[in-house]
Structures are given as structure tokens and as C-alpha cells.
């Protein structure tokens, strides 16, 4: 195997072409709203460099992802940016891509075999949200109250976000009762789980979601249980920066925070990192920052909403 492929910051293969014609973006969670935005922004960005962007259709299936990646490697797509559903399971494919002289950029984490990576700290996103919520609870509720977490334990990214969120919150606001931890990543499940939780704990104060979509379901459940949308003793927060949640934050509702990634930043990285590798730049990898968006960040919200439009 190629010695160059052992470290994440290693230089690219000498054989790699200086300019790229094509970048393959393999993002498995095609059902997420972020997906379309990313494809749109990165296609536009790639075009500026005269590069065409192609995509897979994994439909959230690791099997399909594996076969699509294998097809790309056999087809010699010169640069592949992949968000592995299961990181360990992608190591071999990444290696075969490098062995074939292709550029492999890992998205959302890092592999042993890769040309570069685009990192986010999902734990960090959760931590930001948990911290902000704990701070709010301490200030507004005097450190007492009830919280429900909408979590995800089926994929790595979900586990990271869940852990960051719960650890940060429970550490900083130990007096708040954790009344539920329920699996929910979509608004429907978020709604019905929150409804059930609210039936038992009518005085629930906080709902934090592993995704904005799930938290939004909780947001609606609270409203439907009779809570005013601007109730001061209620806090809902999520992660992703979904547009309807950003709009709710902006309007001053009790949907108060979202740990958001800026799609434009990611889209830039999707194009720039492979190009940097191809150009032989040192340290091509990028760490995309996650920021917590609250009502105070009016301009940022507008910018994010514009990117999502």
C-alpha cells in the first residue's frame, strides 16, 4: 500500500492531476433538507473552478453507500468527498480509492486512509447547545425544572451530538430533572414523543433535540399543550440550523437556539479541499466551525436563511 496514505495530513500522490475535472460528493442522508442545499451550493462553487460535481443516491443505506463508492472507485472519479455512515466500514473503500490514485476526502470525521478531511465536531455542537440551555435554566429557572432530550443512538453522528448535549447540560445544570430521553430525529416522532412526555409532565421546561427537526416537533407539542409561543419559562433548542427553526428563533419564540453549520462554509470546503489536495497544498484539511445561533444573532440568521433559500 502507498505510504502516503497513512496519515491524514500527508501530501497527495505525485500522480494526482494538478487540476480536477470532477468531484464526487457522497452524502448518504439524502432525506435531510441540508442535502439539497449542500448540493446546490457546492455545484455552483465547483462550477466557478470549472469542476463538475456528481452525487450518489445512498438513501441512508450503508449498503448502498458502500456499493456506490465502489462503483465510483472502479470508475475512477478523480476526487471523492464522502460522509461515511459507518466510518470503520469505509476504511477499505477509502484505501482502494487512494491505491487507485484518487483523492479521498473524508467528511464529518477522519479515516486512516484519506487525502484530507472536512471535520466538524458533532460533540461540540451538542455541547454548545447543552451549555446554552443549562445557562438559561440556571438564570431563568433558578437551576430547577424539567428537561426532555430527543436523542439518536443509531448512527455515530447522532451518538456524538447526543453525548455532547446531555453531558454538557447535566454537568452545568444538575438541579434540572431529566424526565425523558427518547429516540427522535424527525418532527413527527418529536411531536408524538413530546406529546406523551407532556401528558405526564405538563410542567416540562426544556426540550433539546439532536436535530432541529425533532426539536421542532417538541416545539409544536408544547404549543399544542396550550403554551404560548413566547412563554418565558420554556426553552427548546436543536441542532442543524434548519430554516423553520431559525425563523422561529428570529420571531422570538421559545425555540431559542440551534447549533448550526453554515451550508456555504461546508459547500466551500467540499470544493476547496479536493482542489487543495490536487494542487499539492500542505494541510488541505478544513475544520468547519459550528456556532450556536440565538435570537441575538439576527444578521447571522438572515445569512443562514438566505443560504437555505
Amino acid at each position, binding site marked *: 500500500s502507498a505510504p502516503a496514505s497513512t496519515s491524514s495530513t500527508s501530501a497527495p500522490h505525485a500522480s494526482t492531476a494538478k487540476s480536477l475535472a470532477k468531484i464526487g460528493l457522497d452524502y448518504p442522508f439524502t432525506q435531510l433538507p441540508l442535502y439539497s442545499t449542500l448540493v446546490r451550493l457546492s455545484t455552483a462553487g465547483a462550477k466557478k473552478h470549472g469542476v463538475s460535481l456528481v452525487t450518489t443516491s445512498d438513501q441512508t443505506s450503508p449498503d448502498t453507500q458502500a456499493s456506490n463508492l465502489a462503483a465510483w472507485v472502479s470508475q475512477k472519479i478523480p476526487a471523492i468527498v464522502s460522509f461515511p455512515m459507518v466510518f470503520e466500514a469505509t476504511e477499505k473503500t477509502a484505501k482502494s480509492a487512494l491505491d487507485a490514485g484518487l483523492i479521498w476526502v473524508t467528511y464529518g470525521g477522519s479515516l486512516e486512509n484519506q487525502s484530507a478531511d472536512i471535520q466538524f465536531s458533532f460533540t461540540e455542537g451538542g455541547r454548545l447547545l447543552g451549555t446554552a440551555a443549562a445557562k438559561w435554566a440556571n438564570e431563568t429557572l433558578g437551576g430547577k425544572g424539567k428537561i426532555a432530550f430527543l436523542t439518536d*443512538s443509531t448512527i455515530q453522528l447522532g451518538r456524538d451530538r447526543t453525548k455532547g448535549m446531555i453531558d454538557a447540560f447535566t454537568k452545568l445544570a444538575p438541579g434540572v430533572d431529566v424526565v425523558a430521553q427518547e429516540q427522535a430525529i424527525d418532527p413527527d416522532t418529536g411531536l408524538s414523543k413530546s406529546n406523551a412526555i407532556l401528558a405526564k409532565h405538563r410542567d416540562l421546561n426544556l426540550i433539546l433535540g439532536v436535530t432541529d427537526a425533532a426539536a421542532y416537533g417538541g416545539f409544536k407539542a408544547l404549543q399544542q399543550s396550550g403554551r404560548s409561543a413566547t412563554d418565558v419559562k420554556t426553552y427548546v433548542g436543536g441542532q442543524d440550523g434548519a430554516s423553520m427553526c431559525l425563523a422561529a428563533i428570529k420571531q422570538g419564540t421559545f425555540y431559542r437556539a440551534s447549533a448550526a453549520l453554515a451550508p456555504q462554509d461546508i459547500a466551500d470546503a467540499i470544493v476547496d479541499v479536493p482542489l487543495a489536495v490536487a494542487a499539492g497544498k500542505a494541510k488541505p484539511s478544513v475544520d468547519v466551525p459550528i456556532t450556536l445561533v440565538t435570537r441575538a444573532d439576527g444578521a447571522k440568521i438572515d445569512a443562514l436563511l438566505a443560504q437555505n433559500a
Partner: protein
Amino acid sequence: MTAAAAAEPLRPAGRALASTGLAVIRRNPLLPVLAALVLAFQFSTGSFLDAANLRGIATDAATIAIVAVPLALLVISGYLDLSVGSSLALGGLVAGQLAGAHHQSLAVAVLGALGAGAAVGFVNGILCCYLGLSPFIVTLGMLTAVRGLAQQLYPLPLSGFGTGFAWLGGATLAGIAAPVVIAALVLLSGAAFLAFAPAGRHVFAIGVNREAAYLSGISIRRTPFALFLLTGAAAALAGAIKASTLDSVSSGTSGSGFELAVLTAVLLGGVALSGGSGTIFGVLLGVLFLGCLQNGLTLLSVPTFWQQIAQGSALVVGAALAFFGPRLRRA
């Protein structure tokens, strides 16, 4: 003998009642199972039967029931529709788009959704009823294709549909949520259709013995075709209701997995996958069983994976008890 004779005058009424009750249970073996489930949850959580919680269950169950009724009729007539999850998404998106971006009235939005759902049902119906293709493959293909289409047309989530549209999911009529009222109407019409309409008999005849139905001069294609239309429209209506309740809808996730949930409710309610048998009351029981199960496990704060294990097992146990009732009686 004398004791029995003395008791005689009282017996007929009591007996008749008891035996009607028994007959109902025999025909609906899920009924005692559901009752046991409800009691168990009430004892263990203490709040299962609270009005707020029951309202929550009813609202969740409503969208399932709305689709389960026409789907049950379709299954009784020997067909199947797996595409309802995507029709639901499409319906929600169309309604949301009309109500939100186009500022149309609730009625227009709902009609739009019904139209979109019926269009999906139309394609399913043509392919399955008139061209005779396998309903499983066709509707599975449509599930994928319509989801792709919805995502292509509406890549971003829609939200902010206005107060007029919020009525559909949020209003209460005499204290009952609008979706529950709609579901009740759908259930009643379904039951009335099977009981009183000539076509209700035809649905059974087609499901049991297509050849015989055909030779009796029954339109063996038109009736299931109409049911495909209805199922698609009902799924879209459910989508509009969900969109209204959440004031948002996303093409990627809305209604994903819904098809299996509905089909499970229908089959658990005693509708045979092979066609020709089933009742709307059974379907209602199936829907409630799943709704109560889901809700009760959440109330009990069962950890995620145990919830999954319990849910799977409950399905099996529900099936077992439901199927054993009739068995034991026969032996």
C-alpha cells in the same frame, strides 16, 4: 335442575348479552388484548388514561386510521399499496405550498393535496388493476419514485402555512381535535360502505374469488382502481393534516416508514393479506393497539432499544393472541 329452573326467567337477556359480548370478542380477538394493554399501562404509569394523554394518542392514531381504512378495503379486495408514505409527503407538500407560498384557502390546499394523492393512486391503479402488474412491486417502485419526485420538486422544507391552514390540524370540534373527527368520519364511512353498499360486497367477492366475481358481472377492475385512488387521496389528506399540525413539512422525512405502520395496523386488525376478509372495527383496534403501545412505552420511559424490542415482541404477541382466539374456539 331446580336451581337452574328458578334462574330461568333472568337468563335469556343476561345470556344474550353475554353471548353477544363473547361473539364480539371472538370476532375481534384483539379487543381483549388491547384492553389488557391499556390496563397494564394505566397501572404502571398511573397517567395513561389521563385526558391529555388519550387526546395525544387519538391525534397520532387519527392520521394512521384515515389511511388504514381505504388501505384495508384495498387489501380485502386482494391488492396492496406500499406507496402511501410518499403520497403522504407529497400531499403535505402540495397543501403546504398552496396554503403558504400561494396564500390559498384551506379548502384549496386540501383539494390540491387530495388531487396529488389521487394522481399517485391513479398510476398505481392503472398499473395494478388494468395492466395486472404485481401490486407489491409497483407500489414499492412508486414509493421510491414519488419520494424522489417530492424531493426534486421541494428540496427544502416548507413551513409557515398561516392560521387558516392551522385549523385542519389544530381546531377542536366539541372538544375533539379536527383530525380525530375526520378519522371518525372515515372509519364510519368505511364501515358503512362495507355493510350497506353493494360495492362493499363486491370488495369481498373480488378478494376471495376474482373469477367468480368477474363471472357475476362485477367490475373487478373499477372497484379496486377506485380504492387505489381513495387510498392515495387519504394518504395525501393525512399528509396535509400532519403538515398543518407541525406547520412544516419536509420532502425527505415526512411520512417515511408510514406505509409499514399503516399496513401493520391493517393486518394486525385481522385483515388477511391474501384478501377477502377483514372488518373496519378490527382495523380501528389495530390502529389503537399500535398507538397505545408506542405511547405507553414512552410514558414508561423504557430505554430506546428496549422499546424497540418490546414493540417488536408486542406485534408478535398481538398477532398470536389475535390468531389464537379463533383457533381455540374451533378446537
